[in-house]
Structures are given as C-alpha cells and as structure tokens.
C-alpha cells in the first residue's frame, strides 16, 4: 500500500515539475509548484518525517509560493492577459540536465544502500537535537532569518533620494 502511494505521489511530483518546465504561464507554474511541494510533503510523511512534512507545507506552500505569486503579481500586468514568459537555450539545457540525470542515476544504482533504513523519528528527539547537537546552526538560522527580513525590507524600500 505504501509503495503504491510512493509511486503515485512521486509521479505527481515529477509530472508537475515537468509542467513547470514546459508551461509559459508563470502563475500556472506557481500553482503547479504547489502540487510538487505537496506531493513531496506527502513523500516525507511516507518516509516517517512528519515534522519536516509539516514544515514543508507551512513554509514552502504557505510562505514561499505565496511570496512568488506576489512577485508575479507585482511584476506583470495581470488583468485581461496571462503573465507569459519565453525560454531560450533549450538544446543546451536538454543536454546538460539529461547528462546530469543519467550520471546521477548511474551513481545511485551503483551505491550500496544496504546500510540505510528509514525508521520512525519522533518530534521529541528532533527538539532535543535542536537544543543540543544542533544549537549553533539553530541560532545561526534564526540570525539568518532576521538578516533576510531586514535585508529584503531595505532592498525594496523606496528611498527618497534628493536629486
């Protein structure tokens, strides 16, 4: 049962990612991104990572995608025309990513995966880890977020430059 679900949601993630690649409408791409992220979140749940899945939904879908949609809305004329965008370098991109995918697949199939096993992680051990082994990265992440908040505000704020 779980295998079937994994196949289904992987296919969903892959198809919506491909849709982003081939569509020319940015808003459609953003909504397809929502599907990709949700499918990945469900794959996390199937890998017993509930907390990461909830974080993924909350931050990626509830935050990042909405910010991206806001970006689209602020940089395009939306009423009566869909926000379109073209593409270039198609051949090079096809070669590069095709070769990369082939290489990665060979590498993955060549790996010794016997040592790995996915087991249930609970949020107690996650919280404990964040306050012990990962305290420094945790605090750094907090500072990084604060800096990003201030930085983004400073970059977009319109300064009254006297000419």
């Amino acid at each position: 049962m779980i295998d079937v679900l994994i196949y289904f949601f992987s296919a969903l993630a892959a198809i919506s990612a491909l849709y982003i690649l081939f569509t020319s409408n940015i808003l459609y791409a953003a909504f397809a991104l929502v599907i990709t992220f949700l499918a990945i979140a469900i794959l996390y749940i199937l890998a017993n990572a509930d907390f990461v899945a909830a974080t993924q939904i909350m931050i990626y879908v509830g935050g990042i995608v909405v910010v991206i949609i806001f970006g689209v809305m602020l940089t395009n004329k939306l009423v009566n025309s869909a926000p379109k965008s073209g593409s270039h370098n198609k051949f090079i991109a096809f070669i590069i990513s095709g070769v990369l995918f082939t290489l990665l697949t060979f590498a993955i199939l060549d790996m010794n995966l016997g040592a790995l096993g996915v087991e249930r992680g609970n949020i107690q051990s996650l919280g404990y880890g964040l306050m012990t082994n990962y305290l420094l990265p945790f605090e750094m992440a907090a500072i990084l977020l604060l800096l990003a908040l201030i930085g983004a505000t400073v970059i977009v704020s319109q300064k009254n430059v006297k000419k």
Partner: protein
Amino acid sequence: MVLFYFILSAFLFSVGLAIVITRKNAIFVLIGIELMLNAANLNFVAMSKSITLDGQFFALFVIVVAAAETAVGLAMVLKVFNYFKTVELDKINELKG
C-alpha cells in the same frame, strides 16, 4: 524504496536545473532553484536514520535558508523591475547603474 526517492530526487534536480537554464523570467529561475533545493531535501529525508535524525535536521535548515533566499531574491527581482521595467533576464544586460 530509498532508491526510488533518490531517483526522484535526481529527476527533480535535473528538471530544476533545466528550468534555471532555459527560462528568461527571473521568477521562473527562482522557482527552478526552489525545485533543486527540494530535490536535495528529499535525499536528506530519505537518508535520515532513526536515532540521530541528521538528515531531517539538515532538511529543516535547508527549508529555513530557502525561505530567507526567496525573500531576498524576490526583493532583488522587484528592485530590478523598478529600474529596468522588466524581469526578462536577457533584456537586463547593462551593468551601468
């Protein structure tokens, strides 16, 4: 099943890379980068083991950094849009400010 996660991750990474290379719109490029970050996360979570959960910690930090990256990235896109009146990357070709 872990193998399958890895292959999906490789696939999403390649698609993300293709989006970054082919797209003209800066926001599309950001979407591609998000896809690549997610592909990496999928690997981390698939590999995370029971007691230490290192992979899940990494995934959490990647998500946090991705949020910061998007905020700053979009702020820059908006600034660029204010100046050039476009976000098509091939039309933004002068360095003079």
